[in-house]
């Protein structure tokens, strides 16, 4: 069970060494339990803090993207006038959420109303179990890790439904149905964008997928999947589907706070609401981690000479980069209408993902090509990406050109 | 008691729970779910015999369960679509009232 780290620098091995050292203190029969508990605690601590700072980073970044400053006030409570660039904002938010009144509607199903936020956090945390955070640094080594990831992810849908139904508010229920419709219809392109990676690597195990992307051409061109035509395109599809799956702008219409008052979360307040909020960020982080693992080379360093930096640092850097991109997209794009949302999924992403699957199959079949055939391979693969993209992209606006807007003039 | 026997007991009891549910409830959805439970009980049997059978390396039991799950998913989709069609027709989903071929 315990993977001993034999290779790498000290920093590289540090987490494992630390864990093993702590485990040694426990009596032998309890060591397996301690082993897992330490892993769980480490994940909770790291990603709890990560979540906290993601919220403040998101708010600050959004501000900057829109020429605002973002939160910069919250300092330390016992030092008057301290500001710390607002970095303690999440803790202030946490205190606020904890001390707010927890309102449960009189007609609500009390048990399910309580259970929904708990479950949603639990399920979204479960997905972290199969992400390889670094070399030999994966909480649970599973053969069918990707399947596990999606199984755990799909269970959150249940929690959404419970939240909507238990509120005993017909608007909440309808919003929950909408959210479900969105999440379910984007699960298909999400999985289909992942399948090409599985096809090429030949494994469902996330650690093997990360390993398969090791190595460099000429020492500086990493073998990440995103640097192949199908991988690049799959990554784009994955990004869009992940945005929709985690209910982020521009796909945040299930809980559009300006129109729907947070949709299925209308009847939640205080700490339960904070739990949903947290689960959303955990889901986002997990999906980003998956994207990093599948397409961005996991914990592999981009250049050979940068390998001295420990692998988990690379993973976290890429994760931060990806979340940064999500925030950037949120600060830029407008919310879609529901019909645009479903049309995008079924008329654009699903066919493209299927074509990309064929593309990846072509790539895998022609892996033996060398010499000038390499150019043919790249050319065909790129054509298989660009052609359908342009053709289907045209079809997406129903044959009409760009829309012209007429503004009210006075 | 050997684990295989425990597994088989679990599966047969689950089967009977599903059967009683399918027999006792008048709601068509619950009857369908009872039938689903019976299917799951069969799957448990497959896995148990795969696990404790003579040739676990062949994996036939696992494959059979995978196919059974696929078929069960299809069954659930079609069954529930039928339930909705029945509901639209007779405004309730009591199974004992759905006994006319005509109408």
């Amino acid at each position, binding site marked *: 069970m315990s993977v001993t780290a034999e290779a790498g620098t000290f920093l590289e091995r540090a987490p494992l060494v630390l864990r093993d050292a702590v485990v040694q203190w426990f009596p032998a029969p309890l060591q397996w339990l301690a082993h897992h508990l330490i892993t769980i605690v480490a994940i909770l601590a790291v990603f709890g803090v990560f979540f906290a700072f993601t919220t403040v980073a998101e708010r600050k970044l959004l501000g900057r993207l829109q020429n605002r400053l973002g939160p910069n006030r919250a300092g330390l409570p016992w030092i008057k006038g301290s500001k710390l660039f607002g970095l303690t904002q999440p803790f202030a938010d946490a205190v606020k959420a904890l001390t707010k009144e927890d309102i449960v509607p009189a007609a609500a199903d009390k048990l399910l109303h309580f259970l929904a936020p708990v479950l949603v956090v639990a399920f979204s945390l479960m997905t972290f179990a199969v992400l390889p955070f670094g070399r030999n640094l994966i909480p649970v080594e599973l053969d069918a890790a990707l399947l596990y990831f999606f199984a755990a992810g799909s269970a959150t849908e249940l929690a959404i439904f419970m939240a909507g139904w238990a509120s005993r508010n017909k608007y909440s229920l309808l919003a929950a149905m909408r959210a479900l419709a969105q999440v379910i219809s984007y699960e298909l392109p999400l999985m289909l964008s992942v399948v090409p990676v599985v096809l090429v690597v030949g494994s469902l195990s996330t650690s093997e997928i990360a390993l398969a992307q090791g190595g460099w051409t000429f020492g500086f061109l990493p073998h990440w999947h995103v640097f192949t035509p199908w991988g690049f395109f799959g990554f784009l599809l994955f990004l869009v589907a992940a945005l929709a799956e985690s209910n982020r702008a521009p796909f945040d219409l299930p809980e559009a706070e300006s129109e729907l008052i947070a949709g299925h979360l209308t009847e939640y307040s205080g700490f339960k609401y904070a739990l949903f909020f947290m689960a959303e960020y955990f889901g986002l982080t997990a999906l980003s981690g998956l994207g990093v693992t599948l397409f961005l080379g996991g914990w592999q360093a981009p250049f050979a000479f940068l390998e001295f930096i420990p692998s988990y640092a690379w993973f976290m850097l890429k994760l931060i980069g990806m979340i940064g991109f999500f925030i950037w997209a949120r600060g830029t794009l407008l919310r879609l209408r529901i019909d645009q949302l479903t049309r995008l999924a079924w008329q654009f992403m699903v066919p493209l993902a299927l074509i990309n699957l064929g593309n990846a199959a072509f790539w895998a079949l022609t892996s033996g090509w060398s010499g000038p055939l390499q150019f043919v391979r790249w050319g065909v693969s790129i054509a298989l990406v660009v052609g359908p993209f342009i053709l289907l992209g045209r079809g997406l606006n129903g044959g009409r050109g760009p829309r012209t807007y007429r503004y009210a003039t006075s | 008691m050997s684990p295989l026997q425990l597994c088989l007991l679990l599966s047969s009891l689950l089967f009977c729970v599903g059967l009683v549910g399918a027999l*006792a409830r008048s709601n068509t959805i619950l009857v369908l779910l009872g039938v689903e439970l019976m299917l799951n009980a069969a799957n448990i049997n497959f896995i148990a015999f795969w696990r404790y059978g003579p040739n676990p*390396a062949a994996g036939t039991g696992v494959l059979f369960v995978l196919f059974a799950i696929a*078929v069960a998913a299809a069954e659930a989709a079609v069954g529930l679509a039928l339930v909705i069609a029945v509901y639209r027709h007779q405004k309730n989903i009591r199974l004992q009232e759905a006994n006319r071929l005509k109408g």
Partner: protein
Amino acid sequence: MNLALILISVLILGSAAVALALRNLIHSALLFVGCWAGIAAFYLWAGAEFVAFAQVLIYVGAVSMVVLFAVLLTRQSDAAEPMNPDSFSRFMRALVAGGGVAGILVGAILGTPMDVSTAGPAPTLTVKEIGGQLMGPHAAALLIVGLLLTVALLGAVVIAAVDRPEKSEDAS
């Protein structure tokens, strides 16, 4: 080892029985989800990792959603009808039939000597092996299941779709 199995069994059977006894359809649907998750746990216990995740993905993720949607789409006038003598007698008869089957099965299981009690460690079947088997000897079955799922999907859509009123010409 057996303790874990017994716990899982209690979870499965308990949630199934309660689910079938409850009057609130949503609650019983959610309990069914618990039951299915328990079955997935059983698969994990037995070492069939892939099947367990497939079970979660399909039952907990998909079938439960279909069930919940169906429950909401077929909302009864209000609550459930009161327990009437008819349903009580049906329950008793069901109990008799189920009890009969249970008695036979349990008797048969307990009465059969099984000499595999000393099974070795759980057999490992990697995903690659399963994939090889699916695309190899069972390729035809896989194709047929794919076809079946497609047909079932189309059939479900056709059955559940609202009939378009045929009097469109009259209306216009």
